[in-house]
Structure formats: structure tokens, C-alpha cells
């Protein structure tokens, strides 16, 4: 079996004296959508932050055959991991166009960047009309989509998507997941998504991990998890 694109082994992370992850192991293969589920405070967001290097972590993290456990967030981004953080990861003082340009900040080659911008805008057509608008003046859903669009501008090998549904209307959330699914199908985008809304996440993902107090409590294919008694009661609500 080929080595997975991303592999975490016994990863721990802490905020100051507080340990948030107590040894998380997971893998993401190229072209997969993998979901991380769990209650508030289970360590979902921290797991993504451990990968992108925005929290202090230990343990083994391998990406595309390289260890990234000790790397800074900017170095991780340069390897092709685009982290869309929780709560509208846009630079609100800058324009939509500037946000997109920043997404491709580490890339070279003006032509291919412009090409990608057209390709990305095809998924978010309304963004094109608002190129000169300040990102902070967009609605919550629009900002979330801009954050996703900006992540795509990196031409990422892996997107870390943190709680894209947070505070958004169901219709908008469905639209975001539709686009993510489309990108995965058509362009083979690999996504590790953290989501409170387990129903949506399990629909989009092929596999999922359930975190409980900083550990993986359960893992498996989305179908299997959907039928799992405790997952249904705790996260799906029926």
C-alpha cells in the first residue's frame, strides 16, 4: 500500500500548561475527503492546528513523505497545505482580489496563478464581481467561501477545513459542502474537514474519525459510522 499523503502518529498538543491532544493518530490518502467529528473541546480544531503548526505539538506528523512536526506555519503552507481556520479565515481589511492573490503568495509564475484564479472563480462566480470589495464587508457565508477560494489559490495538495458551517445558514453550508465535493470529484482535491455538523460531514467524507477528549475514540468509513449506535446518538441526533 502506498504511503498516505498525511499521517499523524500519537500527536500531542498543548496550549500553555493545558494538554489538548493526548495522542491522535490518523491518515489521509491522496484524493480523499476525511472528516474529524467530535463534541466541543474534543480537540478537532487543535488537530488541524497541530498539522499546520499553529499550536505547540509533539509526535510524528508526516506529509508527502516528509516530517513536518517541527515546521512553522509558513513552512507548512509552502509545502502545499492550506489551512482554512475556524471563523472566516480572510484578511478582512484587504480586498477580495488581494485575498486571492495572497492565497498564491508562495507560488511563482504569474500566468499559472491567473489561470488558477479563473478556475477558482468558476466555482464562486459572484466573487469575481466583488474583486475590489473589502473582504470584511462580505457576509459570513461569502467570507467562508472566499477563505476556501483563497486556500485553492495555493494549488494545495491538502486543504484543512475547520468548521466551515460555523454560524452560517443551512443553505449556505450546503452550498459550501457541495463545492467541496465538486472540487474533490473533478480535481481530486484532498480535504481534512473538522465539522460539528456530523450529518453533512459524513455525507461529504469517505472516512471519519471521532475525537473524544483529545483522543481518537472511533474511526471508520462514513457508512459504518453512520450506522454506529453511539455515533448516531451522540452526533447525529436520532
Amino acid at each position, binding site marked *: 500500500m502506498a504511503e498516505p499523503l498525511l499521517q499523524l502518529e500519537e500527536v500531542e498538543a498543548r496550549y500553555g500548561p493545558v494538554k489538548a491532544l493526548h495522542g491522535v493518530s490518523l491518515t489521509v490518502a491522496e484524493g480523499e475527503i476525511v472528516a474529524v467529528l467530535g463534541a466541543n473541546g474534543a480537540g478537532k480544531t487543535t488537530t488541524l492546528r497541530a498539522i*499546520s503548526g*499553529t499550536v505547540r505539538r509533539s509526535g510524528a506528523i508526516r506529509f508527502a513523505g516528509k516530517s513536518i512536526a517541527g515546521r*512553522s*506555519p*509558513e513552512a507548512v*503552507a*509552502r509545502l502545499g497545505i*492550506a*489551512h482554512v*481556520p475556524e471563523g472566516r*479565515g*480572510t*484578511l*478582512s*481589511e*484587504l480586498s477580495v482580489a*488581494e485575498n486571492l*492573490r*495572497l*492565497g498564491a*503568495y*508562495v507560488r511563482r509564475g504569474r500566468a499559472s496563478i491567473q489561470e488558477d484564479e479563473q478556475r477558482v472563480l468558476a466555482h464562486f462566480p459572484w466573487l469575481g464581481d466583488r474583486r475590489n470589495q473589502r473582504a470584511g464587508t462580505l457576509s459570513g457565508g461569502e467570507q467562508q467561501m472566499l477563505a476556501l477560494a*483563497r486556500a485553492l489559490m*495555493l494549488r494545495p495538495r491538502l486543504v484543512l477545513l475547520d468548521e466551515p458551517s460555523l454560524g452560517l445558514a443551512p443553505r449556505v453550508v450546503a452550498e459550501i459542502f457541495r463545492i467541496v465535493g465538486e472540487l474533490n470529484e473533478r480535481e481530486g482535491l484532498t480535504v481534512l474537514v473538522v465539522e460539528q455538523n456530523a450529518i453533512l460531514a459524513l455525507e461529504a467524507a469517505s472516512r471519519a474519525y471521532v475525537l473524544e477528549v483529545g483522543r481518537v475514540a472511533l474511526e471508520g468509513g462514513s457508512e459504518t459510522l453512520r450506522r454506529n449506535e453511539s455515533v448516531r446518538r451522540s452526533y447525529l441526533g436520532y
Partner: protein
Amino acid sequence: MLLAFDWTQLAQQTVIGLSAGGLWALLALALVLIYRSTGVVNFAQGEMAMFSTFIAWSLIHHGLSYWQAFFLTLAISFAGGVALERVVIRPVERAPVLTVVIVTLGLFFLVDGAARWFWSSETRTLPNAFSTRPITVAGVAFSIQDLGNIAVSLGVVALLFALFQFTKLGLALRATASNPDESRLVGIRVSWMLALGWGLAAAMGAVSGMLTAPALASFDQNLMQPVLLYAFAGAVLGGISSPFGAVVGALLLGVFVNLIGTYVDWIGTDLRLPVALAVILGVLLVRPAGLFGRASARRV
């Protein structure tokens, strides 16, 4: 009474005010640049500019022309600013604001002391950057030096604007100032952007110092202390978070302080600094965000 008003004098004094204000604007812009990226006022900005001016003085004394020394000093100041950030500010990058403020205060004394140690405290002079001849525009005589100062100040502001608005590096600098954490996620080396900001600020201060000194009969290590105060007042007037505001604020202040000194007898030249302080106080009371600043609203 109205007919007797001397319009020539008003025009001349306005230009003199703009000339001084332009030099304050450069230092104000330096303050704003650092304020936006670190959230603190760099109290050492004036002393760094003074140090640069002394470097220029030494270069000129070793036989360089004014403008040769000017550009060489710019480069040295830029490198010095970057180095200061790396060595002094970097260790407290994530420390509370008060810590960083104390560090810049310490830097004030460090740079000041270093300048007194390297260069004796006797007074010295810098040659004029521009001809001291007057030039007549529409029947009014202006000094070429004042017009030159205004041109250089506005030129530097324009260059900086172009850097920030039209280059990828400028975009990264703005992103860093607006949200460092997000900026790191797109791969910007935020820490270096901060250092670059210090370099740019130091270079702008150097321009301010090297143009301030020639206008004085002589200068010593206290050269930039009043300028820092005026720059601070101008930045507060325009809005400490707004580069545009800082420039406009400093220019307005330059004209205001000069006109009030000219037309209000009891203020004269002695009370100009207190007037600037009164402006700081007044603005902070009435409009804390300044003319162009946005009131800081933090997400909770």
C-alpha cells in the same frame, strides 16, 4: 484692516509649515508603520533617525557629497532597522504590549547613549541639501530648501505608497499588519515582514533627520526629540492607525503650528511644542481615532 493683510507672508509661512510638516510626516509614517504591525509606538524612532543623521554627518566628513551620504545612510539605516528588530524586538515579539513599549523606551536610551559615545557632544552642522537661494513663484519668494523638503517628503510618501499598493511584498506587509496569524497560513514569513517594516521605518526616519539637520544653525544628539513629538502629534491628529492620516495630520500640524507661531505674538517660536502637545490632548479627548483612523473594534 483686511486690505492690509499680507498674503505674501501667509503663503510663505504656509510653505515653511509644509516643509517642516513634511519632515514630521516621514517620522510619523515611520511610527504608524511600526504601530500597525506591532501595536506599539516606537519611542526610539526619533533617536534612530538622529543616529542616522550622525552617520550621514560622518560620511560627509569623510569626503562624500551630501547626496552620496544621503543614499548611503538610507541603506545603512535600513539594514540597521532590520538588525534592531531581529536582535531587540524579535525576542519580545509575542510579549504583552507594555513589554514592547518598555523595550522601545530602553532602545531610546541605548541609541541615544550610543550616539553620545560615538560622537562627542559638541554641536555640528550638516551642509544644505538644496540651494539656499530663494525662488520667486507668482511674485512670492520661497526658499528652494523648503520646496525641496516638501518634494522629497512627498516623493518618499509616494514611493512607500507604491510599494504597499502595487507590489507583492507590499501586499504581504499589509497582510501582516492586518492579521499576522492568517498571514502565516498563506506562507508569509511574518517575522521577516516585521523586520522589513523596521528597516523601512528607520530609512524614513533617516530622510527626516538628514533634511531636518541642515535647516538648523547647528545640531546635537537632541536633534530629533522635538521632531518625534511633532510626528507623534501629527500621527495622533491623523489617526495613528492610518498612514494617509499620519501624513495629512503632520502636514496640517506643520502649517498650523507655524501659522499660529507667526500670527499669535505670545506663542512665537517658544511655545510651538506645547501647542503640539495641546493638539495631542485635544484630539485624544474629542476624537481618539484621529481624523482618518478607524476606531479599533475588536472581535470578542
